[in-house]
């Protein structure tokens, strides 16, 4: 439904996006993950016809993003990083305006606006000017505005950046609801847990290029998957041998024999079995830690730097 191949955008000397490839099959969610300034927003701007690529091609619903830009705009919904709402209009007026500009008959635009305000829990504020809305309400209204025409393809550029945890959770629920209806979704985020939570597939972008792509478990397996770390009461020569049959690789012996580390395939009762095996070998255990790699680990492993702190300024919109 969404395809990009070699998408490139330069601003002067700076290459904001440098040959990005991605594919989102119909009805799936792709999470585009990367720090500030990685080129996520610029990629979205190209795919949503807001800015033309300097090189590469993109297709949305089979339509070319440059040659068929007008037709692409008829099948997409876009929610940008900054709410693109009219502050002086009410919630209802904003949605009706979008509906009418998208060529819905006025009456249909009105009923669709009411339906969306209801669904996004904004009915009480429907008659108030948007400048009185809170940040979370604006984001919800902005998302509603991108859904007025019931577009089959939706682009959400950092939909929860700057929201408090409750508003964020609410956005997540709304996004999950959309996908359950069959919408194809491309979502950018700098929050690793958000990509993990919502996306079927994840494309990691750093400095304008794709550095990894796959499902969350696939990406996690790149940094070694789950492992256990066991701290013993004291060094014991037999300990490694005692747990060897239970783990999924070689047991490393660390700290002069006081600590064991081994990759595992997680299953119910694994920790119990490990402790029993050590107990059976008369080894005293102080601590068992099961380590599941997060996308933070993935990002660090792939780029050598953390995802969260802003490394570069976002390219001007």
């Amino acid at each position: 439904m969404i395809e990009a191949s070699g998408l490139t955008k330069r601003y002067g000397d700076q290459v904001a996006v440098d040959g990005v490839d991605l594919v989102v099959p119909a009805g799936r969610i792709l999470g585009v993950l990367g720090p500030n300034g990685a080129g996520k927003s610029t990629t979205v701007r190209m795919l949503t016809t807001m800015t033309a690529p300097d090189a590469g091609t993109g297709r949305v619903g089979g339509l070319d993003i440059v040659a068929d830009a007008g037709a692409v705009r008829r099948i997409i919904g876009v929610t940008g990083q900054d709410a693109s709402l009219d502050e002086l209009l009410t919630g209802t007026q904003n949605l009706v305006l979008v509906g009418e500009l998208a060529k819905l008959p006025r009456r249909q635009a009105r009923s669709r606006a009411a339906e969306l305000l209801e669904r996004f829990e904004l009915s009480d504020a429907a008659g108030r000017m948007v400048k009185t809305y809170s940040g979370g309400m604006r984001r919800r209204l902005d998302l509603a505005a991108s859904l007025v025409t019931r577009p089959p393809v939706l682009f959400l550029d950092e939909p929860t950046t700057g929201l408090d945890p409750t508003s964020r959770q609410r956005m997540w629920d709304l996004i999950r609801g959309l996908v359950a209806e069959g919408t194809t979704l491309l979502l950018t985020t700098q929050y690793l847990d958000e990509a993990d939570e919502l996306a079927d597939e994840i494309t990691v972008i750093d400095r304008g290029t794709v550095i990894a792509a796959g499902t969350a478990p696939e990406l996690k397996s790149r940094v070694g998957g789950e492992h256990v770390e066991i701290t013993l009461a004291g060094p014991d020569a037999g300990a490694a041998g005692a747990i060897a049959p239970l783990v999924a690789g070689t047991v490393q012996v660390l700290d002069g024999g006081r600590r064991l580390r081994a990759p595992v395939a997680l299953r119910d009762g694994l920790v119990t079995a490990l402790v029993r095996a050590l107990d059976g070998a008369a080894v005293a255990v102080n601590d068992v830690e099961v380590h599941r790699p997060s996308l933070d680990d993935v990002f660090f492993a792939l780029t050598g730097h953390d995802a969260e702190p802003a490394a570069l300024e976002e390219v001007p919109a």
Partner: protein
Amino acid sequence: MSTAVLDPPRAPLAAPAAPAPTRHHRLREWRRDTTVLTRRNLLHVRREPAQWSDATVQPVLFTVLFVYIFGAAMVLPGGGSYKDFAIGGLLTMNLTTASMGTAVGLSSDLATGVVNRFRTLPMARSAILAGRSLADLLAAVLCGSIVLATGWVIGWRPDNGVTGVAAGLGVALAFSYALSWFTACIGLMVSDPESAQAVGLVILFPVAFVSSCFVPTNGMPSWLRMIADWNPVSAVAGACRDLFGNPNPTGAVHNFPNQHPVLVSLVWTAAILAVCIPLASRMLRARTVD
């Protein structure tokens, strides 16, 4: 994650990818976009206290103040009442300065994200400018009518009846509409509404004041009089006075714009439109491609 389809995807509400729209169809869509945006911009005029007072309070205030302050000391060359002389000028002055609303409105739309929303919609981009200038024209109709109504209340009397008044108002509104395309270019040039306001003031205030709006140019020093006589604003003020059937002492001065104010006003109007409509459209395109 499985994509259990709870509610099967429905057809999108807007017809997707209509087959190559005809010219007629495109024109109809453009008209609709323009109407929708005009209505939206009128709501803005109503809700933005500064714009609303420019269209309603300012015309009353300026008309009353200028008529009583200047009128107290003014003896018109060739005789006649200052009230009758002043209204054509005040109408022109108010409509000239009111055209700044276009610069302010357009630059604030560009500064907020709302134009980005428009750009992702299947709409005609030129409707952004058309809808803006039409809304500002309607605000100018209100502003101009208030000037004339205030004038009537304080004793302005046109000799040429309703037709004359309508013709004068029409010339002034056409000029104001052309100016709002000029200020649209200012709005597209600057980055925020505050600068639009500042740049607009610096350009339009001298143009409005170095003219025959408040005083006949007859008594000005010759260099200033030359500028004032050729200023399009003077032509419009003169045209209004002639059409209203009010005293127009500058009409006695032998130079072309003073003798043919209606013709000169219409030529200026057409010339400004011919330059500024394509220019503003190009500037908007440049501002919205990045």
